C-alpha cells in the first residue's frame, strides 16, 4: 500500500514537471485568450489548482484511517 502511494506521488511529480515546463507550456504561450483572460494565465493557474487537488487527495489517503474530514 505504502509503496503504491510512493509511486503515485512520484508519478504526479513527473507529470507536473512535464506539464509545467517547455515544450508543453509553450503550447499555451502563443497569445490568445479565453473570454478575455489570457490562455497561459488560465492554463497555469488551473493546472496549479488541479495539482494541489491531486496532491491533497494522494497524501491524505491514509490506509489506516480517513483523515480528510479532520
Amino acid at each position, binding site marked *: 500500500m505504502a509503496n503504491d502511494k510512493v509511486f503515485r506521488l512520484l508519478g504526479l511529480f513527473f507529470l507536473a514537471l512535464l506539464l509545467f515546463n517547455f515544450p508543453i507550456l509553450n503550447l499555451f504561450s502563443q497569445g490568445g485568450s479565453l473570454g478575455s483572460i489570457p490562455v497561459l*494565465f488560465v492554463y497555469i493557474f488551473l493546472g496549479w489548482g488541479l495539482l494541489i487537488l491531486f*496532491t491533497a487527495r494522494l*497524501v491524505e489517503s491514509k490506509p489506516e484511517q480517513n483523515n480528510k474530514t479532520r
Partner: protein
Amino acid sequence: MDAGIIIFISIAYVTFLFLIAYLAEKREKAGRSLVNNPVIYSLSLAVYCTAWTYYGSVGRAATSGLGFLPIYIGPAIIAPLWWILLKKIIFISKSQRITSIADFISSRYGKSTWLGIIATLIAVFGIIPYISIQLKAISTSFDLLVTKQSAVYRHAEIPFYLDSALYIAIALAIFTILFGTRNLDPNERHEGLVAAIAFESILKLIAFLTVGAFITFWVYDGFGDLFQKAMDNPGLSRLFSLEAAGINGWEWFWLSFLSMSAVMLLPRQFHVAVVENTNPNHVAKASWLFPLYLLLINIFVLPIAIAGLDQFPSGAQEPDSFVLSLPLAYGKDILALFVGLGGFSAATSMVIVAVIALSIMIGNNLVLPLLLRTQAFQEEQYGNLSGRLLGIRRVSIVVVLLLAYGYFKAVGEQYSLVSVGLISFTAIAQFVPSVLGGIYWKRATKMGALSGLLAGFGIWAYTLPLPTMVEAGLIPIHFMEHGPFGIELLKPHELFGLHGSNHITQAAFWSLLFNCGIYFFVSLYTSQSPLEISQADIFVDIYKYRKGSSDYDIMRRQAKVQDIRILLNRFLGEPRGNLLLNAYENTQRIDLSQQQVAGADLVNYVETHLAGAIGAASAKIIIGSITKEEPISLEEMFKVLEQTKEIMQYSKALEKKSTELERTTRQLKDANEQLKELDRLKADFITTVTHELRTPITSIKALSRIMKETPGLPEEQIQEFLTIVVSESERLTRLINQVLDLEKIQSNQKNWTLAPIDFAEVTEMAYSGLKQLMRDRKIRHELKIENRPIEVMGHNDRLTQVVVNLISNAIKFCNPNEGAIKVNLRQAGDMAILEVRDNGKGIPKKDQKLIFEKFTQLNDETRGKPKGSGLGLFISHSIILQHSGVIYVRSQPDEGTAFLVEIPLLGTGENRGDEE
C-alpha cells in the same frame, strides 16, 4: 506621511509579534502547544514568501510576464515528493538532533567538522544577498511611504550614519536577538518564533490579497477588464506569451529547479520545515496547503504589474514598488500603510528566521569546532558555556546583518529584488547533491561531498556575486568583457563560451554540473571511515533504525558520570543538564549517583542531546574529549571482521565436509553397482558353466545309451561313438580343471617356484599343439620368434597355459571365413614381448579393461553365444602378474585384436629378488 507614525506602527507591530511569541511559549510550557498542528506548520513554511514575493514578483512580472512564476511553481511541483523526501529528512534530523542544513550535511558524512564549516560558509555567503534585498525592500517602502515618490535618493550616496537602511538592519538585529537567543533550547525549537512567523504569513497574504483585490476590482472592473486593456496595448500584450517576454524553456526549467531545491534547503526553510517540525505527519497537509498559499499570493501579481504599467506609462515608478505606489496614487494612504506593513512582515519574517538559522550554523558548525580545538578552551574546565554559546550567536546575528547591509550598500541597490534573490537560490542549490545523495546513496563519501560543494560554490562565486562587484566598481570592468587575463573562455557571464543563456541559468548549470560530477566520481574513488559508514547507514536506512532502535549501538564508549554532568552543566546550564539526566534515570530506571562509569547508552544519549544544542560535529569533539574510546576503533572493526571471517570459514568447512560426504556416497554407490555387476556376472558364469558341462554330459549319456540299448551295432560305429565319448570326457575334465585352476591360482599364488626357462621354447610348444586345430579351421597362421633363446624366470606349465589360452582365444574370435593369426615373440629392452594377433571383430574400448576380470564373457548379439568359460583371460592375467609382467590388449573395432604379454628378461633387477 509622517515618518514618526510609520516607525511607531512598525514598533507596535513588532511588540505585537513578541506578544504572540510569548503566548505561544506560555502555552507550550502548559503542554497545550499552539503550533503543533499542520495548518500552523504550513503557514510557517510560507516564510518562503519574502519581500521578493511581495514586491519583487510584481517587478519581475512587469518585464517578463508570467516569468516570475517558476519560483512558485517549482515548490508546487516538488510538493508531492515531500511526503517521501521531507519526511525522511525530518526523521533523520530528529533521530540525530540535527539543527541546521550545515549540521545535516556534516552529520551525514561522518560528523565532519570541515564539511560543517564549508556548508556554513556557503549558506552564509549565499544568503547575504538575499537578506540584503529584504533591507532594500523595507527601506525603499519606508522611503516611498514617507515621500510618496520612488528613488528620491540613492542609499549608496549618503553617509551610512544617515542611512535608514542601517538603522533598519540594527533594529532587525536586536529584534532577531530578542526572538532567537533568549535561551538555549537543546532541540533548537522556538515555538514562539513559529507562532509569530505563522501570524506574519497570514498578515502578508491578507495584505497582498487586499491590494490585489483593490486594484483588480476597484481600480479596474475585474480580471477581464484588466486583461482586456492589456491586450489592447501592444506593449503589454507581450507579457502573455513567455517567449515574447524573453523567457525560454531552458531558463524556465532552471528557475523551477532552483526553487524546488530552495524550498527545502534554504537555511530558513530547513529550519521551519525540519528543525521546528513538531510532527512528521504534518508534512502531508503542508504538501498541499503550502502550494495553495503560494497560488493565492501569486494570483494578483500579474494584474498588479499590468495595472502599474498601465497607470505609470512613463516609468516614473519602480516596478518593484508598484504594490505600494498604486494605492498611494489613488490617495488610499491607510491601505498603503497596511500594504507596507504586509511587506514589512514578509521581510522581517525572512530576516528573523534566516538569521537565526545562520547564527545556529555559525555557532555550532563554525565557531565552536574551532574554539574547541584551542588549548585554552580545553584547559578551562568549569564555568557555564551556554551563556557563551548565546553570545556567539548574538555576535553572528549582528555580523550577518551588517554584512547584508554592506552588500546592499555596495551592490544590491542597482539590481532588482528577483535577480539578487536568484543569486542566493543558486548558492543553496549546491546542497542538492550532498543532501539527496546523502539520504539515498550509502557509498557517497565525505571527500566527495566536500570537493563537490567546493567546486559548485567556487563556480557560483565566480559567475554570480563576482560580476555584481564589477558593476559596483570593486573590480575593473575589462574583467567582465574579456575575461581574467584576457581569456575569453573564462568570462564570468559566458563561462566556457556558453552564449545565449541568462547568467543565472548558466551559473546554475555549470556549478551543478561540476558539483554533481565531482561528488559522484570522488565518492567512487575514495573510501569511508567507520563513522562515515555508520552515519551513511543511519541516513539512508532511517526507517530500519526507527523500527529497531537498539540496532545501532555501534558507539562503544565509556565516560565518567561526573564528567558528563560537568559537560552538560557547561553547555546547557545546570537546571537543563539535571533535567536531562533525570529524564534518563527515569526512563532507564537507574540511579546515576550510584554509578562511576556511564555506558555507551548514556554517552550516546548525551551526545545526541548536546548535538541539538551545539551541532553534531561539535558534540562529537566534546564527547570525544571525555570518553575513553573513539567511536568504533580500528581494532573493534577488525574484531567484527574477524568474527565474520570465522563464521565464513566454519561455513566453508561445513561445505567441504558435505562435498566429501557426497563423494563418499558416490563411491559407495559405485562400489555397490560394481558388486551388483559382479554378482550378475557370477550368475551368468554359473549358467554358462552349467550349460557347458551339460553339453558333453548329454552327448556322453546319449551315445552310451545307444550302445547299451542297441545290440548288434556295427563295430566302426561303436568305435566312432567311443571316440566322441572320450573326447567329450576330456572336454569335461578340462573345464573342471580350469575352474579348479582358478581357485588354485587365487588361493596359493606364492607357492610356485619360478625357474629360468626359454620363453621361445614354451611358445613354440604351445603353438605347435594348436597348429592342427588352426589348419582344420583353415586359419592362416604364423609364428615369428626373434633372437632366441629368450630366457625368463618362469613357471613352464603356467606360461604354456597363458600362450595356449591366448592362441585359443584368437582361434575362437578370429574372422570365421578368412581367419588369420600371428604370434610374435621378441625382446625389447629388458622385456620379452609376446604378441598374439587375430583379425576378428575387435573389442570395444569400454570392454577392454573388463575382459581381464573374473567371469567376464563378451556377450552381445553380433558375437553370438560365448564360447569360453570366461576364466581364460583372468587366469592368464593372474599368472602374468606372478611373473612380474603385464598383459594388455590393443584393439580397434573391426580391425582385430592383439594381446600383448610382457615379462622381464632373465638377469634384470626385477627377477633377482625372486631367485633368492
